[in-house]
């Protein structure tokens, strides 16, 4: 970021205005903000429930859906969403019924889903989609129709999480106690995996498989340390996610780099900074506790 700040303010603003006049850049910006909002909310639930691996499994299994949709000639959204929901359902069943074997089973679904997607694309006659575009996404080529879809899914996710907020909180913190309080834990768990599946499918085409996992984990992981409630963690994760996405987009535009990968590296930079900051704070906090103890 140093070189960016180094160049004169005038050229920077004019470059920015120039970029914003391009429709694809405006769409990319809106897509980035929408993706950040959803990832902040869902990612927070994924991180506090420690199901990052499961979310990764669903995201990779979605590849099978992409392959299937192209092979059968189905519309992308229907085919991929259906397939991901199936994978999420299988994972929910496995993690609820056979907890001790859950991680291995998730690994199997992860790999098989992805392999099936590749083979199905191989078998699809004629034009073949570039799988790379699904790895890093194509945020610079988001059509307006996708933005509407993302907006709707975003509203749906936020509405569901608001409605069940305290139930999700109780389930994530202590599921056994939540069960005793008649919180529908199994239903909420399946609902959460379903929401992950739907959002992953929506986001994968825009920012790619790798960025989905990065945005679901890095911002919430940073936010967890500095917030006092799940709600605050969601808001801070969304804000951080926005910051990383927008600055990453800007960097990739001005340095002519792959946007998805640049966003991830910016997020990783933020993560390293936060780790240092957290350590510094902890050291200072420790000193303070010592101080009060000795003064008592």
């Amino acid at each position: 970021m140093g070189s960016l700040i180094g160049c004169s303010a005038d050229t920077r603003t004019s470059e920015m205005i120039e970029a914003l006049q391009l429709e694809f850049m405006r769409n990319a910006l809106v897509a980035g903000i929408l993706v950040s909002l959803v990832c902040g909310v869902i990612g927070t639930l994924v991180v506090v429930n420690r199901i990052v691996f499961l979310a990764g499994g669903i995201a990779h299994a979605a590849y099978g859906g992409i392959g299937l949709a192209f092979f059968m000639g189905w519309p992308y959204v229907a085919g991929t969403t259906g397939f991901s929901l199936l994978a999420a359902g299988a994972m929910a069943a496995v993690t609820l019924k056979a907890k001790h074997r859950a991680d291995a089973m998730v690994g199997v679904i992860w790999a098989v889903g992805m392999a099936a997607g590749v083979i199905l694309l191989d078998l699809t006659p004629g034009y073949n989609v570039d799988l790379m575009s699904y790895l890093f996404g194509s945020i610079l080529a988001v059509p307006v129709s996708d933005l509407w879809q993302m907006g709707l899914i975003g509203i749906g996710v936020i509405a569901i999480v608001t409605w069940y907020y305290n139930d999700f909180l109780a389930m994530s913190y202590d599921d056994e106690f939540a069960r005793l309080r008649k919180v529908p834990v199994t239903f909420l768990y399946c609902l959460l995996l379903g929401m992950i599946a739907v959002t992953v499918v929506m986001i994968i085409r825009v920012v790619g498989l790798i960025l989905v996992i990065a945005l679901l984990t890095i911002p919430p992981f940073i936010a967890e340390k500095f917030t006092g409630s799940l709600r605050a963690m969601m808001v801070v994760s969304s804000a951080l996610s926005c910051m990383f996405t927008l600055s990453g987009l800007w960097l990739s535009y001005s340095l002519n780099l792959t946007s998805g990968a640049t966003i991830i590296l910016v997020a990783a930079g933020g993560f390293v900074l936060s780790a240092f900051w957290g350590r510094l704070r902890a050291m200072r906090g420790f000193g303070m506790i010592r101080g009060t103890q000795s003064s008592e």
Partner: protein
Amino acid sequence: MAEIIIDVQGVWFAFNGHPVLQDVDLKVERGDFLVVIGPNGGGKTTLLKLMLGLLEPNRGTLSVFGRSPRKAVHRMGYVPQNVHINKTFPVSVLDVVLMGRLRTSSGWSRHSRQDRLAAQAALERLGVWALRDRRIGDLSGGQLQRVFIARALVSGPEVLFLDEAMASIDAQSRGDFYEALAELNQTVTIVAVSHDMMILSSHVKSVACVNRDLHYHGSGEITQEMLDAAYRCPVDLVAHGIPHRVLCRHEDQRDD
């Protein structure tokens, strides 16, 4: 005789084919302060979870307030063994206690004004209202334990189950903690599980020893026979400094 609120009859439970509990009978009266002791792995926690309806017995019957545990669960409070789970979780003390008020109705999971007042009352009762805005991970073991008891009490239960409640409390604060429990016991039946015999204070009204099978003793005392039966080997009874009625008194000393 007081009303029997928990009735365990001939309960068997096996985990992965290994018997954990064999033919256990237990009755708990309203107003009792029962402590269940026994060695680690002896089935104490299992018995507690059976009474809470978190586990189902393989054989035998179990009723709480005359109904199956699952149907009576709203009248029970539960303080789990491990209060140190999820210490990095971003949640305040007040929000943890409010979890105890969940699902009084279906629909939006919002907390009402009554929920907040009940949470305040429970935290004040346990003397930790001042900690309400602290993050849960910043509390000491004793404070955490009080917060978790507040969470169990906030729904106004008639019976309170405590699993290894002493484990996270340092020796100095145990006295206070017993006092707090004894005060609660005036209105709430208490069933506490402990592998630590130190929990037996003068406030305890009855004791049961569990090691696959159960030995019940009608008063807050342990006899050598109970221990021998429960631990399957001779165990020395050791009393510590504070004058507790842990040991059976000799007949000639009995004066109450």
